[in-house]
């Protein structure tokens, strides 16, 4: 048991090495992207054609199949950034900072998508594109937090200082995540309460639930594959002086195309 645990920890630590992470990301991202497209295609078809209409919202509830996963990812990605920030500040894990950097722009996109699709859903349902509701306002603050994080990244020129400052900023902004999550419970909001809860039975029938779960899986896999794609580029940019990166760049220039998989681990 102890040997197995030691082996697991050793494997995890080896993936924190930039070279191993590059290989892992290069091998996994095409598969993840492929699976995410399959899930998204099935989920979209089921959401638009198979799921029955809601008795109150009619067909407009179908917007929630893209709104809920976007909102879920906007919160999830920020939490991942905060965990990575913690890993960087405590153990100086380089990969953690790279994942946080690559996740920020993706998180900002999904937050903007959640806000926009929410506004498009709100117009026919509430009669307004926007209301200063607790959930909506706290989500807008999250979008500004993402923008602040991205601005801070590009504003500080020293890579080490930039990583440190951004990690502290990300940890400070983490306070907004529980506020967004519990806003519908703490305040009397126009936004509906949670439909899927970890502790309670889902408030929607299975015929409506499974397309949502498929979309959630598709969005999640899409995020992971994008992080892998972006982190490969970021790794090469940061580690360009390392021997293994020189090998990749040499191979790519001799083949006249970017190296995708052919990394030799010595």
């Amino acid at each position, binding site marked *: 048991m102890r040997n197995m645990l030691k082996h697991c920890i050793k494997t995890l630590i080896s993936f924190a090495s930039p070279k191993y992470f590059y290989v892992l990301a290069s091998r996994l991202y095409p598969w993840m*992207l492929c699976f995410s497209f399959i899930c998204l295609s099935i989920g*979209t078809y089921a959401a*638009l054609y198979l799921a029955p*209409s809601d008795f109150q919202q*009619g*067909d*407009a509830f*179908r*917007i929630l199949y*893209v*709104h809920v996963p*976007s909102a879920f990812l906007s919160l999830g990605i920020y939490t991942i950034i905060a965990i990575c920030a913690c890993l960087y500040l405590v153990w100086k894990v380089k990969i953690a900072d790279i994942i946080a950097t690559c996740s920020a722009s*993706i998180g900002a*996109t999904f937050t*903007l*998508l959640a806000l*926009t*699709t929410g506004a*498009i*859903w709100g*117009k*026919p349902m509430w009669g307004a594109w926007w209301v200063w509701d607790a959930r909506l306002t706290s989500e807008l603050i999250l979008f500004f937090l993402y923008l602040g994080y991205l601005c801070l990244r590009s504003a500080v020129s020293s890579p080490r200082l930039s990583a440190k400052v951004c990690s502290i900023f990300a940890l400070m902004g983490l306070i907004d995540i529980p506020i967004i999550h519990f806003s519908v419970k703490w305040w009397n909001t126009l936004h509906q309460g949670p439909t899927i809860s970890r502790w309670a039975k889902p408030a929607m029938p299975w015929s409506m639930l499974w397309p949502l779960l498929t979309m959630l899986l598709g969005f999640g896999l*899409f995020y992971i594959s*994008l992080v892998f*794609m*972006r982190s*490969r*580029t970021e790794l*090469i*940019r940061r580690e360009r002086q390392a021997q293994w990166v020189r090998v990749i*760049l040499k191979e*790519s*220039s001799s083949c*006249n*195309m*970017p190296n995708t998989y052919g990394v030799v681990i010595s």
Partner: protein
Amino acid sequence: MQYAEYIWGCYFLTAGFMGLQIWLAYYDHQRLFQRHDQ
């Protein structure tokens, strides 16, 4: 389908954002290697 323009608008917007993200990630990677070749 009721509110079809709102629903399709959301789905096309999502697809557009996702496509843009993939293109940006791919373009960034390609550009890095092209810069190195030059």
